[in-house]
């Protein structure tokens, strides 16, 4: 183990490097460009031994990954935002073909207007493409989760692709200390990928990617659905094994300061800020807890319900939203509460879109609003924080009155 001060992109690149992918196919996009850049440097210097395909688009990058993975190789790619959106079609195909591709995402807002900064709308928009989805809180997690993602993706009980999100700039361009494991340790944790169902070998000619008629299609989708459910157990196993191998503990859901009446639920880099806030608020006598969601797909509904037991208000604070509905994370939290009988009120706070900073002050507002909800002084619902609502209304009125 070597401690290095790395930006998030470099940490992710280290994760990829240590996983020894056979093939990397990528197209640069802010804020994840440094990942293929760093990998290209390592390959150019002979430090890393992988085939690098620098495609003409993200769509082709993932298509090349599918081709390489279907041939039987371990593959890696990285993208963000518009690039991930351009991959959308192929995301479904990669998971439908059960190819264990791992991809790093520099979580960034979607156009329009064009915006290079952080939010989770890019990955949330790909929620139902059959990929496992993990969110890193720190650069260390970005590196580690890539290794864990490979371990789970290639497990024969799973065979699903995975994406690991690291927040644009807040992680991708932020330097901090990262324990970089030794290659030998990683090789023990993550042995060479041996394809069992998907390969392209003239000695054993198989057909991959056929037409699935109504007679069979639903079975394949059910198989993916069940594989994703099975992944819940495999992820926990892989995280526990990771803990034993590298001494860093991981879990799909991470509780902090449990037992509070108000529970904040977050994903990604704002989770650290949330914990700092909760720690302070506890000292001031507030009854507040926090849960960090690391694995968003599959989602651990029953486990979350256990962590929410006793809560009176659940405040889901997220960097994504759903037009005309509640936020994507809140949707799953709501289902978990309903399914497992958590009687708390649910409030959804939309923060930090397009790189707006998520601050301790935002969490103060979350807490204050949650307390009003607790006292029955305010209805729970969807709250957009730190946004100039009056200005928006004024602009709309200009159009209405035109």
């Amino acid at each position, binding site marked *: 183990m070597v401690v290095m001060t790395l930006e998030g992109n470099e940490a992710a690149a280290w994760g990829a490097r240590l996983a020894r992918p*056979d*093939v990397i*196919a990528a197209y640069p996009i802010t804020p994840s460009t440094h990942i293929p850049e760093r990998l290209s440097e390592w390959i150019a210097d002979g430090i890393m031994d*992988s*085939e690098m*395909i*620098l*495609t*003409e*688009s993200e*769509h*082709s*990058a993932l*298509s*090349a*990954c*599918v*081709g*390489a*993975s*279907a*041939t*039987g*190789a371990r*593959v890696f790619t990285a993208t963000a935002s518009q690039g991930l959106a351009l991959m959308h*079609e*192929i995301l479904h*195909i990669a998971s439908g073909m059960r190819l264990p591709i791992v991809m790093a995402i520099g979580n960034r807002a979607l156009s329009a207007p064009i915006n290079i900064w952080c939010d989770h709308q890019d990955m949330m928009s790909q929620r139902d493409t059959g990929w496992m989805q993990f969110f890193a809180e720190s650069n260390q997690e970005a590196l580690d989760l890539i290794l864990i993602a490979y371990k789970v993706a290639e497990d024969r009980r799973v065979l699903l692709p995975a994406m690991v999100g690291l927040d644009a700039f807040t992680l991708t361009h932020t330097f901090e200390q990262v324990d970089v494991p030794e290659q030998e340790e990683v090789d023990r944790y993550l042995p060479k990928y041996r394809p069992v169902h998907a*390969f*392209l*070998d*003239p000695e*054993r*000619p*198989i*057909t*991959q*990617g*056929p*037409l*699935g*008629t109504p007679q*069979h299609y639903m079975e394949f989708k059910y198989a993916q659905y069940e594989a994703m459910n099975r992944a819940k157990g495999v992820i926990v196993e892989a995280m526990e094994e990771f803990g034993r191998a590298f001494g860093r503990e991981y879990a799909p859901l991470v509780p902090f300061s449990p037992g509070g009446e108000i529970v904040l639920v977050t994903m990604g880099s704002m989770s650290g800020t949330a914990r700092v806030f909760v720690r302070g608020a506890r000292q001031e006598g507030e009854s507040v807890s926090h849960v960090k969601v690391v694995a968003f797909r599959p989602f651990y509904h029953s486990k979350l319900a256990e962590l929410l037991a006793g809560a009176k208000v659940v405040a889901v604070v997220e960097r994504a939203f759903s037009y005309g509905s509640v936020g994507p994370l809140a949707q799953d939290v709501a289902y978990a509460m309903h399914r497992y009988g958590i009687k708390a009120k649910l409030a959804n706070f939309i923060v930090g879109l397009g790189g707006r900073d998520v601050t301790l002050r935002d969490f103060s507002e979350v807490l204050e609003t949650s307390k009003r909800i607790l006292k029955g002084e305010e209805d729970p619902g969807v709250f957009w924080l730190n946004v100039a609502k009056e200005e928006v209304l004024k602009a709309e009125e200009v159009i209405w009155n035109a």
Partner: protein
Amino acid sequence: MPEEFEPIAPGHSACAGCGSTQIVRWVLKEAGPNTIVVNATGCLEVFSTTYPYTMWRVPWLHVAFENAAAAASGVEAALKRMGKKAHIIAFGGDGGTADIGFQALSGMVERGHDVLYVMYDNEAYMNTGIQRSSSTPLLAWTTTSPAGKVIPGKQQPKKPVAWIIAAHGAPYVATASIAYLTDLRKKVRTALSIKGPKFIQAIQPCTTGWRFDPSLTVKLARLAVETCYFPLWEMRNGDLRTFRLTYIPKEKKPVEEFLRPQRRFRHVLQNPDLLERIQKWVDENWERMLKLHEAAVNQKL
């Protein structure tokens, strides 16, 4: 009887008389069993692999409509890494190649992947029911370029996709017709002997989309060449000095002979002006190629 390598099995659900399997069968016979096929979405992919059946006896991969070239790039990179050697042949129709898949193809060629890309050119989106493509010829009827009272079929000429790929500097680019089997096989052989990206555009008469009797598939593939509507040529490295017509008809037949059996040109055959426009396009195209051929042969380039 010695066993001969048959790359495809019967029992697929192509239209009776479909020319695409003829192209595929003879390309793959030439390549041999140590071959991996990557297939763009299209008729060929759909009729050959209805789960749980497959026509293919070689490893075969389909990913999507517009990315066969990108997927093939990935296959090639993976094989290289895994220390295995096999021919990689991508098949795509004109839609998956000249239109929606064009960017991925251009990328594959520019990056220099060792792949033979074969475009089976049936001159429209046949899989979705005969819509115009950029490879649909001038004035042809399709469901989206109907022969209307005001607009008589497609208003643009056929996109010269093989030329565009040649302009990338691709090591080998050729056109082919199943009616000239020796020529086609030789071109595949040549292509596979060269490392890097190769491109063959093979004309594929489509009984359903061109609307002709299914028995005439090969005949139309022949008439396309003999009328000089679809000249057979090859070129290396985008170098015009290497340009060669590989078949020059002794007597150039009027394009009408090629058009007559096809009901997609019925409105053209009823209108001498329209027929003349097509003949003019054919003549100009052929003249240009013939001149280039002669100049190249006589080392005047």
